[in-house]
């Protein structure tokens, strides 16, 4: 186990983690940068609560980071902010160098669709659609209508997650592990800068959880997509390159995972 407050570890960003090395040179702009981000609920009411207090966080291109913390620490809120599903009350959020605070709803939605892939705990596939259609869906929403290239890319992505055989099956007719693989393929459909995974293996047995995790690592290694994974599972967190720990709405520790870095 790592000591969350080990001050001998180098600060974030000074030493690029494994996956990011070769892309750092090509892309000097951080994939994600949060500066003093604060989020409160119930502003203007007597029960206003500040959930996140001045969060500073930078994710470089190609990083594979874990976000850990106890329940109620603000992980989901932070993930929603990073995923552009919500707006901070204060502070600034940059995605690939672009400040998102001033963007209107429609531009934010388009940016979210293009730049961010989501993997949820309960996969959240659309049950009425097949595995292939689920993977096509982000492309379909962005381009407006189905085309052959879209179908081809979705089929390729499903092949990559080992589900070619199941692509015409309804999302509700395949196993939990398979559904989560479809969700990974879907998250990659738009070739996003950043994939946000909220407890991606929380609903799976150990074997499937490992398989899903390995898949994400493979994608990260192969295409350099940045991953931020929220997890309760210390075993999985310690297989990430970097571990960010959030307690009571503050980052209490942010360090590279020495085990992985050394192995890498």
């Amino acid at each position, binding site marked *: 186990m790592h000591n969350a407050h080990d001050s001998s570890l180098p600060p974030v960003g000074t030493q690029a983690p494994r996956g990011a090395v070769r892309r750092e040179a090509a892309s000097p702009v951080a994939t994600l940068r949060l500066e003093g981000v604060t989020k409160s609920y119930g502003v203007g009411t007597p029960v206003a609560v500040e959930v996140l207090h001045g969060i500073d966080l930078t994710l470089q291109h190609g990083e594979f980071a874990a976000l850990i913390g106890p329940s109620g620490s603000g992980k989901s809120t932070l993930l*929603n902010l990073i995923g552009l*599903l919500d707006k901070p009350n204060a502070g600034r959020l940059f995605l690939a160098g672009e400040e998102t605070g001033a963007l209107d709803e429609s531009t934010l939605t388009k940016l979210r669709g293009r730049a961010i892939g*989501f993997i949820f705990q309960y996969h959240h596939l*659309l049950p009425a659609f097949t595995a292939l259609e689920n993977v096509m869906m982000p492309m*379909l*929403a962005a381009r407006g209508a*189905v085309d052959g290239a879209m179908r081809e890319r979705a089929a390729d992505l499903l092949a990559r997650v080992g589900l070619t055989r199941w692509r015409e099956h309804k999302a509700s007719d395949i196993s939990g592990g398979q559904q989560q693989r479809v969700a990974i393929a879907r998250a990659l459909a738009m070739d996003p800068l950043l994939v946000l995974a909220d407890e991606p293996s929380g609903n799976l047995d150990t074997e499937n959880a490992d398989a899903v995790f390995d898949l994400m690592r493979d994608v990260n290694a192969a295409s350099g997509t940045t991953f931020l994974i929220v997890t309760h599972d210390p075993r999985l967190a310690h297989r990430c390159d970097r571990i960010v720990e959030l307690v009571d709405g503050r980052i209490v520790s942010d360090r590279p995972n020495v085990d992985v870095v050394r192995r890498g």
Partner: protein
Amino acid sequence: MNPFARFETIVAFRFMREGLTQTLLIVFGVALGAGVIIFMSALLAGLQANIVRRTLNFQAPIEILAPDQIARQLRDGGPASVAAQIQPRSQQLRSVDQWQKVLGDVAEMPGVTAVTPVVAGPGFARRGEATKSVSITGIDIASFFDVIALPEKIVAGRDDVGPLDIIIGIELAKDLGMAVGDKLSLTTAAGVASTLTVIGIFDFGNKGANERNVYVALRTAQNLLDLPGGATSIEVKVHDPFAAEKIAQIIRGGTDLEVDSWIRTNAQFFSAMSAQILANTLIRVFVGLTVALGIASVLVVSVVQKSKEIGILRAMGTERAQVLRVFLIQGAFMGLTGALAGALLAWGFLLLWRGVARSADGTPLFVVVIEPSLFAIACVGATIVGILSAAIPARRAARLDPAVAIRG
């Protein structure tokens, strides 16, 4: 671009397929509503057209007559006039003053399709011992048939009345025991008598008209009624029978003539028809409202059921406008397919009605024309109602906060 390859259409149809029972139930509900509206409208239109046709068979939409003769008080004011009683004058048969000019002016008016001079007055038809009172109408065959479709109503003989010819109704022919080619003596109050040959027998489908109306040449009637060169009325046909009163008012305004429209002379029928139209409109509005509420409630439930999916779609970059359209398409589809099914249903009922609603002699009670335009209007209307009813649920769906929706 193929509309069925579009994101919104694909998602809308898949959502509807997922809730198939719900979708089918509401489509069936819309079908019933649309069917009732179409059936009732066709029936009412048929009934009205039938009555209008029957009335206008033997009556021109507008009739221009000489003004009534009024008895005037000789001295105005003064003590003697206080007790004076003025008796209304009896009306003589008179010609419309300068009828040729009036005829020309009216023929030029917008909305007027045909005009014809007529000389009409009372008379007696006699054959042997039998005498019947008749209404003599002198016609100018060149223009009269453009106003009244008499040739279509001829059941025996021909319609080209010459100076010594007469066309009589089927009832009169029966009463006097006459057939085409027989001679008939026509006498008028002026004491003029003429023997004419029956060249045609008509049937207007109205016993009174078949019994009383007889048609002779204009010149013959002028002689019989002692109105040489005159015309007692000018009959006017208009493009839209329901605009007759409006046109009549315009004519009335420009002259001192008496102008009657068929709407005025059949006031009772028109008030009954207005009541019927009002009742039908009310029923249509309420049925439409019920259909709209049905669609809206199904979609409201659907938005709640699908909120998680909507949240996921939004997280994946689906815009609010796209979500809005997904639900508007569902509303439009439910309205349109419901109306199409309703049109089929109504069509079936109308065919059934044609078969069942018959009078005692086996002829159809009245002809219900199945107008394609009515079906088209119903389908377009139902689609619009569908879209409007979907507006509120669609807005709700579009405004869902994706973060909240995904959390459930």
